[in-house]
């Protein structure tokens, strides 16, 4: 499947969608399509239902964390050196703001082709972390999107049950983020005994340890 033709076909059939081809430099050349959040559900539905595509099987859903990073590239700048205009190499530093990414790998069980990789990006890593949920297009995204919320903190709008999957209820951070710091007491987990122990301490304090 040529991703260029798929992209052109989606653009012709889903009005207003903005797609971007993301090239992959690795030898397997699995390129991907970057979707905009507004039209993601309609693009996904089109990919699932269109006769020649029929990507009915969403295999893998995962997140990637891209923290803010500094990219330095060499640029040639014309400068006046001792009154003569010469080209000088200068290192230009740009700051790429951080974002979170969700990646979907699609296959077709009916036509037996694939993979097509879809990506969606949040605006930043702190507050604008919303993406549309695709679990109503592919049910297989259900638990996997929950896992992404748990480990990366992307909020999937429209997901029916966005709870933590692997960490426990009441855990605050998102441990797969690059800047996550392990707590000192990483073995701590709330247990059913916590309340009992607290009451035992209270009782000991009241009775003076008797």
């Amino acid at each position, binding site marked *: 499947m040529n991703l260029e033709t798929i992209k052109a076909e989606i653009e012709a059939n889903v009005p207003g969608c903005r797609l971007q081809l993301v090239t992959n*430099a690795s030898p397997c050349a699995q390129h991907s399509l970057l979707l905009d959040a507004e039209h993601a559900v309609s693009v996904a539905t089109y990919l699932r239902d269109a006769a020649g595509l029929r990507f009915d099987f969403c295999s893998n859903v995962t997140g990637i964390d891209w923290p803010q990073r500094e990219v330095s590239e060499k640029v040639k700048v014309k400068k006046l050196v001792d009154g003569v205009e010469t080209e000088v190499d200068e290192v230009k530093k740009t700051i790429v703001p951080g974002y979170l990414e969700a990646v979907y790998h699609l296959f077709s069980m009916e036509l037996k082709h694939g993979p097509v990789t879809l990506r969606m990006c949040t605006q930043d890593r702190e507050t604008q972390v919303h993406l549309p949920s695709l679990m109503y297009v592919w049910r297989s995204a259900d638990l996997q999107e929950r896992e992404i919320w748990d480990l990366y903190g992307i909020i999937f709008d429209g997901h029916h049950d966005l709870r933590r999957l*692997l960490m426990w209820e009441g855990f605050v951070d998102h441990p797969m983020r690059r800047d996550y710091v392990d707590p000192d007491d990483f073995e701590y987990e709330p247990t059913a005994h916590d309340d009992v122990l607290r009451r035992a301490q209270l009782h000991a304090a009241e009775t003076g340890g008797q």
Partner: protein
Amino acid sequence: MSTTTYPTITLSPKPDESEVQLLEVSMGPQHPSTHGVFRMDVTMEGESVVKLKPVFGYLHRNHEKIAEQETYLGSMPYTDRLDYLCSLTNNWGYALAVEKLAGIAVPERAEYLRVIVGEMTRLQNHALLVGFLMQDMGSSGTPLMYAFREREKLLDLFEALTGARMMCNYMRFGGCRVDLPAGWLDQAKKVIAGFPKFLDEYEALLAGNEILMARTQGVGVLSKELAVSAGITGPMLRASGVNYDIRKVDKYSIYDRFSFRVPLGDHGDVYDRYMIRLLEMRETVKILQQAMEQIPEGPIMDPKTKVRNFRPKAGEAYGRIESPKGELGFYLVSDGSPVPYRYRVRPPSLVNLTVLEEMCLGHNVADVVVILGSVDIVLGEVDR
């Protein structure tokens, strides 16, 4: 647009609590039928299930985070611990993904070795599953021990080849770690030649058993459409009648050289899932016999692949294999450093549990145990 209708996703209905008396039971995590540490919050009306919420994470150790702090090769022994019954196919899936990422070719003999150990893993996994499924149904002991007896023979072969029964750590990027020891192939041929006898015996013992049929037929039915939409893979998908086997679709490794059939079910119930495994074992025996006949001499490692300072170019790759439980995928993102920037395991066991609630609704609580048993999960992989 095609006219195929997709199932509308129905979420668990909220029972009217004023009219019926509901009982909430927490099944697990410490219960032998959960095959590990897995919990289900089951709401029951009388004995029938009206709501079931699986609770994950009891065995979570953030495998993916650990792998992102480890070199590419350093994660190889840790993949053994994902689905700890099928360490060799886990190795294979990971090796395949890294080979895609770095563009490594695998020598022919190594591909044959991979097929042989991979299919043996499938045999022992399915044998174990049918044994445990019987155990879940209450036929205590005998069928499970029959299955264990056969599995032990295969594990002995793994031990002779890799040094470990279960944590094999056998594959490397661009090949396999060690070649076959002397006499291994003859012993393996003997074991595989005896395997159909075990299957005949097992089927004669159980396939027509009235209790087995009563407990499994029509129980936990999964429709074709829902199975595709929910990303179910492996024997569970094929029991629902979808012809999708990654060995046939992707033709990864050298699977296009072997002739084997893909058994399909038509009801999608627990009985079909049970029978699919038995039939798949027979096909696997065929693949093994062909592979052990054809295996050529030659190198088992790609000489150009670096062991130290292995740095794939920046990029990403998704590699997948047909593991005994379904599609085992590895998604790797490299930034050019010796450690993966992102390492993701696509666990078949977890995704196959997506529709557990739909399969269990309306059944008795004793059927939940059987339905969960027929999914074939290993918690090391579900929770990672």
